[in-house]
């Protein structure tokens, strides 16, 4: 049971990554690789601040801000210096590796004896149950600590997701969505598309870094290698989410990304349970995204062929 709760918790934490990837890849059609670096940046900034006694909410907020700066750098490289979008992301991601090492001062920061959002959630949960440490749910023994962390992260995701949804419907948010959709049109309506891209990537990487900071607080450590392959992970979640909701209404696509993240995490947990080696995880993820990317083309061709027959 505790394994299942843990799976959901990580699924929700990484859904913020999925939302970030959704903004860059789907809203802006910008293949932003920065996320691999900014998720670690969020983790290392939050971990370092926590170790220095900063309060967990503030440390998480700082992680969000750091991610925004990283995203803005990528956006500026692309718009101001006309560097190809992939390359801009790769440059910033590579630079972030060193920056993360500098932030942490070493390759790994443990958070075992530090107050984090996770320990705070546990304390609130235990306060509510008046010190009872486990309860029975449909015959399963559920730890109050695990359940409180899950509730807290689900609440946090719902809150940030709603804020993002509302933002995307403001004048500024609509201009951002239109920028990814039709640059020609948005310029003709007086919007500086370069500013929109810089700002959009900043928000995207803010979400990714926030996800990293929560991951570090949940796992109890930040590690310089934790971001490897995370963009692909986020993309897999987004693709699953799109298949789940099958709509391009803004609200539904956001819900889809969150659901996709949780579902993908569940699939991974099941695969690991069945004996998939953790070493093969990234390979499997990449292969999965590959198939998810080519399936639509495949279906279209098949449909055309059957239409001709």
């Amino acid at each position, binding site marked *: 049971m505790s394994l299942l709760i843990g799976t959901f918790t990580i699924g929700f934490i990484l859904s913020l990554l999925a939302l970030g990837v959704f903004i860059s890849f789907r809203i802006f059609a910008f293949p932003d690789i920065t996320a691999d670096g900014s998720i670690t940046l969020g983790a290392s900034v939050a971990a370092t601040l926590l170790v220095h006694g900063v309060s967990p909410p503030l440390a998480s907020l700082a992680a969000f801000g750091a991610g925004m700066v990283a995203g803005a750098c990528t956006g500026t490289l692309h718009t101001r210096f006309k560097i190809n979008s992939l390359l801009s992301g790769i440059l910033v991601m590579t630079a972030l590796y060193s920056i993360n090492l500098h932030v942490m001062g070493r390759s790994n920061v443990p958070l075992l004896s530090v107050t984090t959002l996770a320990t705070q959630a546990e304390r609130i949960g235990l306060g509510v149950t008046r010190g009872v440490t486990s309860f029975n749910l449909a015959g399963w023994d559920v730890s109050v600590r695990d359940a409180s962390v899950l509730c807290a992260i689900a609440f946090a995701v719902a809150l940030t997701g709603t804020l993002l949804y509302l*933002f995307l*419907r*403001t*004048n*500024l*948010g*609509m*201009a951002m*969505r*239109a920028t990814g*959709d*039709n640059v*020609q*049109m*948005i*310029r*003709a*309506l*007086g*919007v*500086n*598309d370069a500013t929109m891209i810089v700002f959009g990537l900043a928000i995207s990487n803010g979400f990714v870094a926030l996800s990293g900071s929560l991951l570090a607080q949940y796992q109890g450590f930040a590690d310089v290698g934790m971001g490897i392959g995370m963009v692909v992970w986020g993309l897999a979640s987004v693709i699953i989410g799109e298949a789940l909701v099958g709509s*391009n209404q803004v609200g539904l696509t956001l819900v889809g990304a969150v659901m996709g993240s949780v579902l993908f995490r569940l699939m991974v947990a099941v695969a690991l349970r069945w004996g998939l080696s953790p070493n093969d995880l990234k390979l499997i993820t990449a292969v999965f995204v590959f198939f998810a990317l080519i399936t639509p083309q495949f279906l279209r061709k098949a449909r055309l062929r059957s239409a001709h027959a």
Partner: protein
Amino acid sequence: MLEVQSIVKTFNSGTPNEVHSLRGVSLTLEPGSWVIIIGTNGSGKSTFLNAVAGMFFVDEGSIRLAGRDVTRWPEYARAELIGRVFQNPFSGTSPSLTIRENLSLAARRGRSRGLGWGMKSTLVSKMRDEVSRLNMGLEDRLENAIGSLSGGQRQALTLLMATWLRPELLLLDEHTAALDPKSADLLIALTEKVVAHDKLTTLMVTHSMHQAASLGDRLIMMHRGQIIHDFQGAEKRRLRPDDLLARFEEVRRAEQLDESAAQMLAEKYI
């Protein structure tokens, strides 16, 4: 209103693909005038409109609009003064946004965009009114994505968007060319209505000799990056499609003459 002073634009300058798209074009528009631009393919009509819109900076010359020198203004800044409808129905609207969202983007053309709510109820009811005036039944589909509309519907909406806030200058680049004849006629009727109603200063490119003869109060003909004819007033009113075709024929003959002369010279001297 619009004062264009001998603008020059050369693409791919200094390479074998060098194109002299504009070779010193000057044009002054009175407020409220509607100028039709015709010319052969590649004569520089679109390039001229794009230069005015700011899609690129001109190599020489200056552009003044509504009393301001906009020669060095980027495209998005000029949008405050200019409304545009493109040839491609896909260019003027954002397909995955709804009709309402597209219109509310247009309702802030050239203005700041902050965290304000895009959907004020007064704005939405005005949208319903304006859209129902297009007579396309779109007023009940404001929540539909634009991607689901036909080309003619999109162009009508783009025209509505371009003129939602009264522009100092309206640029129409073959905005009916991609439509079937019936939709094209509808769009032209709409265009006449809005231009007359808002007394808009308009530059319109067309390949339809019928439109060129019947619309506007001035007509210019471009050829090889220059203005070669300029008909105004009574002279413009007298023009018939046949007269315009005759002008094109002249251009073609002159061209052939050029070619045969060049050939003769080449035979003689090379």
